[in-house]
């Protein structure tokens, strides 16, 4: 009789829910533990499934056996009444100590089971992982693609071809002037390309807006890199032009009167002597021919006085750029200064220079 009583009690001690994961494996879970998940609870109440191996509850695809094991560990602990808040907190802190990938999978699985406390716990842990990182670091940590700026890179590849096609004929006073305006046009064209893209692709605008909203060191660093790259290309371009100038100068210098040579050499020395000099006036001997040339150029719609002032400012600007070059580049810079006079003599010089540039 006593034995019989024991036998009767024993079958009633535990109830189980049968759960099936997407890979087909089925396992038996204590009812009170499984029911802690709202999604499972709903399934049991609404469909009656889960009572046997044949009628196991099919879990969402995001719940694989490993994740299910973790989730059930969490549920086993928290469904037991009587744990203090401190104990629960300690358990949670230990529980979320896992690598980022597993933490992501766990978050996703817990969400599909509607287990909000666990989703909150893992989401907060992931947020803490994200804090303070740069976009590059986040992509690396979470294995994400760098697809936000893909199109921009492609645009950059197209830029040289477009530039060559659209390069206008150079008609400006001197080498320096022409180079500066050309740079202006090139960059403006680049901006126009971006503007054209804007209606099609809102991202560049929104990207910049996001940048503006929370501008800070790391993001600015990203943008600064882009600027840096652009600047580097410009410098290389300038260097090539300078080399070309040197060659041209060697060829054309001999026919010139020695007086011109001496004057410009002194001019160049003066320029190099004072790194921080302000705008430097050209010798008067150069001024008059240039002015004459301006009057003769009917296509130029700039006012001569404005042009002159702009010219000085452009030269000053170029000097600032040049001052960043290594010291040996100063020689090329000097050559460039010497080159000013021949250009101003006649429009043929300008045309010839353009031809040389094109051949490059």
């Amino acid at each position: 009789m006593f034995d019989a009583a024991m036998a009767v009690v024993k079958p009633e001690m535990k109830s189980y829910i049968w759960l099936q994961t997407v890979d087909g494996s089925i396992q038996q879970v204590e009812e009170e533990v499984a029911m802690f998940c709202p999604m499972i609870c709903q399934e049991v109440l609404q469909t009656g499934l889960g009572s046997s191996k044949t009628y196991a509850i099919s879990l969402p695809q995001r719940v694989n056996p490993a994740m299910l094991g973790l989730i059930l560990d969490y549920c086993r602990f928290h469904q037991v009444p009587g744990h203090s808040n401190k104990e629960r907190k300690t358990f949670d802190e230990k529980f979320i100590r896992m690598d980022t990938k597993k933490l992501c999978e766990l978050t996703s699985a817990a969400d599909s089971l509607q287990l909000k406390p666990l989703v909150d716990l893992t989401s907060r842990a992931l947020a803490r992982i994200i804090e303070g990182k740069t976009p590059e670091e986040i992509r690396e940590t979470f294995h994400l693609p760098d697809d936000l700026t893909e199109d921009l890179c492609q645009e950059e590849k197209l830029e040289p071809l477009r530039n060559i096609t659209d390069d206008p004929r150079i008609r400006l006073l001197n080498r320096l002037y022409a180079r500066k305006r050309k740079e202006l046009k090139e960059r403006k064209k680049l901006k126009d390309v971006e503007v054209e893209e804007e209606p099609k692709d809102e991202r560049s605008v929104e990207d910049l807006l996001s940048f503006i909203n929370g501008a800070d060191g790391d993001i600015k660093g990203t943008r600064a890199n882009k600027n840096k790259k652009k600047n580097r290309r410009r410098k290389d371009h300038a260097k090539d032009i300078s080399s070309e100038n040197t060659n041209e100068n060697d060829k054309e210098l001999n026919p010139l009167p020695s007086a011109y040579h001496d004057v410009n050499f002194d001019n160049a020395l003066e320029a190099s002597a004072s790194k921080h000099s302000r705008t430097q006036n050209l010798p008067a001997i150069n001024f008059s021919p240039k002015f004459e040339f301006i009057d003769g150029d009917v296509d130029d719609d700039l006012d001569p006085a404005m042009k002159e002032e702009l010219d000085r400012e452009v030269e000053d600007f170029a000097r600032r750029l040049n001052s960043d070059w290594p010291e040996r580049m100063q020689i090329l810079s000097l050559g460039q200064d010497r080159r000013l006079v021949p250009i101003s003599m006649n429009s043929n010089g300008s045309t010839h220079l353009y031809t040389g540039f094109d051949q490059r």
Partner: protein
Amino acid sequence: MECRRKKENQKSNSTFPDEVLERILGMLKSRKDKSTVSLVCKEWFNAERWSRRSVFIGNCYSVSPEILTRRFPNIRSVTLKGKPRFSDFNLVPANWGADIHSWLVVFAEKYPWLEELRLKRMTVTDESLEFLALKFPNFKALSLLSCDGFSTDGLASIATNCKNLTELDIQENGIEDKSGNWLSCFPDSFTSLEVLNFANLHNDVNFDALEKLVSRCKSLKTLKVNKSVTLEQLQRLIVHVPQLGELGTGSFSQELTSQQCSDLESALKNCKNLHTLSGLWVATAQYLPVLYSACTNLTFLNFSYAPLDSDGLTKLLVHCPKLQRLWVVDTVEDKGLEAVGSHCPLLEELRVFPADPFDEGIVHGVTESGFIAVSQGCPRLHYVLYFCRQMTNAAVATVVQNCPDFTHFRLCIMHPGQLDYLTQESMDEAFGAVVKTCTKLQRLAVSGYLTDLTFEYIGKYAKNLETLSVAFAGSSDWGMRCVLDGCPKLRKLEVRDCPFGNGALLSGLGKYESMRSLWMSDCNLTMNGVRLLAQEMPRLNVEVIKEESYETHQAKKVYVYRSVAGPRRDAPPFVLTL
């Protein structure tokens, strides 16, 4: 919208569904982190876009309301800044712009559930405040700092119509204070207020209305009253709200009987959560002792309008062992600052304002001696704003040696072009010491006689600098170039009365798109130089403020900022957009 989101979901390459990723990103607190995650990839960009609830816009012309609402569809809280900071020094003319109304019109359509609006240096009219009060049924928090254009009529609209209001914070505004009756416009059923600050209003308030309001708002935690509230009235208010965390006392001056004095002390003593104290516009030394028992837990004392002397401050500080932030007027003199050094070991932020910046004859104020004393006693100091009449290179070097963790260092030697008063040398080495020693420096304001050497130091060492303010300093374009070339994180550059010209301006071409703004006034800029900048950088807004009636080639006031919204649509005639 739902269709769009579903479509985007199909392209998902992450382990998260959208709602989970949005929840994770929604937990990020800092603006920097929010912006960072939106630059990670397309999926995170969109998740951050949909999950974002609050947005900060550092320049109201850098983006349009239409672009903002398209980018972030679910915003509940907006923080917006308007005029350049030098408007605080009357360098920006009246009617320059920064009007909030066009933003509110768009928000009413796109963000009808807007809850919070925090504005700084914006122009706000009474009509705008009425519009705000009527169009946003869930509106809770309004903060107006250094704004202008409104009157107490606008506040009356807010009080009348914002039934869920929790915060009304009106500080340092150019407000037309018509009367104090706006307080009686709060409905009798209104009980939700948590923050009430009208400290800078001037008129007498309707005290009965104020007392009723305070007594029924059981969640009130910040109360800052204006000068018109007497000590007796203050006591009557405080007994209703012993839970206060922040108190602004008003003038703190009145003839009290000993019983009234005792009652006030008792009421203050009962405020056990008090952590911030401000006011004392006309502090009487006689009544300071009633504060002593309330100071135990104070972390912030804002006495920037309280003309305390050194003795008054010293006796008070003995009772403030937990003080972290202290704002005072230079009437405390060096002796008062020595007391700060002696009694405030936890101090992190010190601001010393001039009582009378234009008073030439009086020999008072603070000097290098007080500065050194504070630095010796407060090793955690990392924010300083210090107006003084004299300074030395050696003193500044000592200060940063004692406190190398400065993030904000703003030194204002009040006479332009002043030398180290002991050695009669430039102050270059002082700021050289600052940037060499304080590697975390984010904000720097320089003063005194400075050559380009200071800016060489800044460009070479200040690798975390974000904001630089320069006045009456430098020798040539080289100085500004060093800063633009050498400070990779620079966001704001404010320059006035310096010899920087077009070359300096144009040397930053590759820099300005990564900066929030550049202000240059009374420098050596010409219209042609500024035009060249505008021509070269079409995505920057390059504006010249032209107040002269005569024609000139000089560009006296130049404001350059990046914008995705293009040129301003509301520029007045004196703002030329190049």
